[in-house]
């Protein structure tokens, strides 16, 4: 499984990344992408800015371990994970996960698991700045439940 992980404060173009990923594929019949964007309205009304912090080195290692898990569960041709950190505004892309496999089920499930992990277990800390000032966000109960779906398998 070819893999690529990038954590960066620079904006990225999801579709340019997906296009380059697709061009690199040799025998995959299906490609799944998830793009996460800053929602203009957050937990606390209108959001003017979002900030993401990570722990350089440890966050990347955690994602690489998730990818080891993914590689052991499914037969994938390639996986791409891009996660933005730093300050960003409404509608800006935060995260991109792309997976490709011979048949579609593996690509769907791997992208789904990676997003569950990234949302609830990867070392990122998110704050939203709105009318009430800056608020640190914690995963929703739904995020923990989503991630727990993969534990028994």
């Amino acid at each position, binding site marked *: 499984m070819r893999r690529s992980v990038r954590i960066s404060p620079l904006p990225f173009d999801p579709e340019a990344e997906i296009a380059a990923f697709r061009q690199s594929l040799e025998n995959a019949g299906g490609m799944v992408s998830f793009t*996460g964007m800053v929602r203009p309205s957050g937990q606390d009304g209108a959001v003017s800015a979002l900030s*993401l*912090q990570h*722990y350089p*080195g*440890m966050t990347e*290692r955690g994602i690489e371990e998730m990818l080891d898990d993914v590689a052991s569960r499914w037969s994938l041709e390639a996986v791409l994970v891009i*996660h933005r950190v730093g300050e960003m505004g409404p509608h800006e892309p*935060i*995260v991109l996960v792309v997976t490709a496999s011979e048949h579609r089920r593996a690509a769907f499930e791997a992208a789904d698991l990676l*997003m569950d992990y*990234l*949302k*609830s*277990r*990867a*070392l*990122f*800390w*998110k*704050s939203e700045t709105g009318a009430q000032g*800056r608020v*640190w*966000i*914690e*995963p929703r109960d739904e995020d923990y439940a989503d991630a727990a779906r993969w534990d028994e398998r």
Partner: protein
Amino acid sequence: MAQLLFFGRLGDLAGGIERQMILSQPHAITDIIGLLDAGDRLLGSALAEPRVRYAINGAIVDGDTLVEDEDELAFLPPVSGG
């Protein structure tokens, strides 16, 4: 000198993400939280919350683990990516 890192809302309470601490001998993480609590009760009680995890040099450890003077100790509150 040990490097202390405070992520997420803990950084707001600590007044910054980084802080140095001179450890003349190894201390358990819980002892270090006690030292920080003596200077700032708000920070100390936030660090002691059960959902806060600890990492030494990038590896998750429990509160009994000893921190040495060259170590990097990180306090990790609940995460929220993507």
